[in-house]
């Protein structure tokens, strides 16, 4: 990354804007305690009901992350009723998370039953059939971790589902589903890309957060 271009000095950044950015990040990721101290330190105003919601969202997120999909679904239904009906993809992802749990703990009969009751309904829509087939394939292997579908068992997959769930809940409660910080970094990257496409080799290098933080 180039050394600070001279233009930077001419732009004033409002202190409270920065606070808002940090706040939105903390709210998005449910860092309740940090949020409380931050608010008191900076003297910002923070509506109270956000705190309770955050606590619930945090628990839902962690249930999903741990693979405890049934608990996650229960709490989501309670907290944001109708959300899962509106987001069929998400519902499917969560149910299949539960299925994966059953398969990993070698409860084959239960997994079969669960699949027959809860998952096959999705099979009526063509777009779910391929996904269903992949999940069911886990049953075909004695050691599902060694099957071609092993990625469905991974923590990366669970994290992905948990994050989608988080975003959906935020959207449902009329909060932004992306934190301001995330958006800003995305924005910078895209702007940089456009510039370098237009100017070719003479343009700037693509935006790298890592380099930026080091400089």
């Amino acid at each position, binding site marked *: 990354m180039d050394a600070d271009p001279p233009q930077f000095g001419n732009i004033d950044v409002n202190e409270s804007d920065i606070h808002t950015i940090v706040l939105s990040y903390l709210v998005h990721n449910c860092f309740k305690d940090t949020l409380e101290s931050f608010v008191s330190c900076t003297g910002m105003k923070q509506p109270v009901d956000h705190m309770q919601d955050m606590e619930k969202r945090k628990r839902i997120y962690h249930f999903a992350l741990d693979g405890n999909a049934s608990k996650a679904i229960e709490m989501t239904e309670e907290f944001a009723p109708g959300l899962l009906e509106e987001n069929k993809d998400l519902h499917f992802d969560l149910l299949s998370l539960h299925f994966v749990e059953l398969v990993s703990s070698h409860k084959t009969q239960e997994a*079969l039953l669960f699949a*027959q009751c809860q998952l096959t309904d999705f*099979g009526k829509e063509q777009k779910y059939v391929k996904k269903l*087939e992949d999940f*069911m*394939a886990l049953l*075909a292997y004695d050691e599902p971790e060694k099957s*071609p579908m092993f990625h469905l068992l991974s923590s990366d997959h669970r994290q992905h589902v948990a994050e989608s769930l988080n975003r959906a809940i935020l959207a449902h409660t009329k909060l932004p589903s992306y934190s301001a910080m995330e958006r800003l970094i995305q924005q910078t990257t895209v702007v940089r890309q456009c510039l370098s496409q237009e100017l070719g080799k003479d343009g700037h290098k693509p935006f790298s957060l890592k380099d930026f933080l080091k400089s």
Partner: protein
Amino acid sequence: MRVVEDGTLSKRVKVSSGKIGGLSDDTSVGEQGSCSLSGSMAPLLASEDDKVVGSNGVISKVEFVRIITEALYSLGYSKIGAHLEEESGIPLHSNLVLTFVQQILDGQWDESVTTLHQIDLMDENIIKLASFAILEQKFFELLDGEEEMDALKTLRTQIIPLRVNCDRAPELSYFIVCPSQISLDKTHSQESRLSSRKKLLGELRKLLPPTVIIPENRLVCLVEQALDLQKDNCRFHNSVGEMSLLVDHQCGKDKIPYQTVQILKEHYGEVWFLKFSHNGRYLASSSCDSRVIIWVVNVDGHVIMRHRLTGHRQPVSYISWSPEDDQILTCGDDKTVRRWDIDSGECLCVYEKQNLGLVSCGWAADGKSIFTGVTDKSISMWDLKGKEVESWKGQRTHCMADLGITSDGKELITLCKENVVLLFGWETESERFIEENQTITSFALSEDGKLLLVSLWDGDIHLWDIDGCMEWIGEYNGHTRSRLLVRSCFGGLEQAFIASGSENSKVYIWHRASMELVFSLSGHSGAVNCVSWNPANPHMLASASDDHTIRIWGLKRVNSKSNGTLEKV
């Protein structure tokens, strides 16, 4: 005569649910255990030392007898088949194979897989693929009997470890939870257990090497190959039907249309173009008197006029039949395209482009849109209501009236320059070219869309293969052309012939593969501009001439005075 030791001659391959129907009266697999290669050989009546049959020394006697035996069983003559096995000492199939077949029909899956491993002459991969097919059948039968856990066990412990057809695993797993989907699966359908097992057996027979199990109907297959070869060599072959096995096949010229059977005089001017519909039931012709006539071909082959279409203001030079044969497009010197209904004779739509002219026309494969060439060298696509839907600019078409479309509907064929034919993929905008070293006057596409006939300025006709890579196949000449547009076409059984008009008033017919001139037919008193061979009747050819008539050529004699005469080549 040798004494038969036990009643094995009449034994059949046993089936648990009674006699096998279906494929053949008995599966042509042979008889259990009456002979074995390693056991005592039955004394042969023919000379034992001959290992080959025939004067060329290329046919193995053992194989020859085996395929005859298989043919006997396939025809239902099991007694004779068994007797042949016994008398020749050459069993059709080894005991292991017979056991294998029986186990498949009885549904003894695991045992059959074991037997499979015991059979010699097979490589790893074939054994695995065959085992897969067998275990898949076991899997489906278990699911059929609602034994899901057993099916899952089979999948896990037997099928997956084979490590073949791995992409089938997700589908099979899905069937366990959703058995209703099985009926939609392409490899299985609603049929009885036995017929499904027989189907599996058929698949396995194709999978296993022919030395292990003789392919079904092998002898018939070989005979058909010989007949095909004879047919290909027959230069005048133009009729369907049985071919005799007793003599080598050779047609005479009498099955190719060579006599005028009808003269159609309803046009008032030179007839420039004609074309049969795809189903051969109609003929459309156009004349320089600006009119188009629709004719009906009766069942007895007689052609009568149905409609006279008026509307164009100038001569019509090209007609295109819709894929369903219910409409035609016409275009000509007045540079508009008209769409007509065959039933009523009404003009349904006139296509025009502002300030420009339309010079050629053709139907899209789905019959829902049409393509036209335009005087500004572009190509346009139109809907049925007359609205232009798309336009491809650039040097796409020359001022010619020819527009073709390949049989898959994906490529348009036009002349984009004087000597270049363009195959334009209208969806992908891909381009392929055929370049000749002379001006091209017209072209014609074969029915299967794989061959293109290109007529050149000096009169030669070139044949190109346009399926895949473009290859020049051959040349046809003999006819004459110097000033006029003379068209040619494909025709006859399997498009085995090429016909063309000629300025010297004759119709020329060549055999396509050998490029040999078969006939030159006289009768017309003016240049023959266009010919069309009836796609549904290989014995009917129509020609259009400057003498204002259309002649229908066929096989029957005609009593009228103006008889066509043939000139033998």
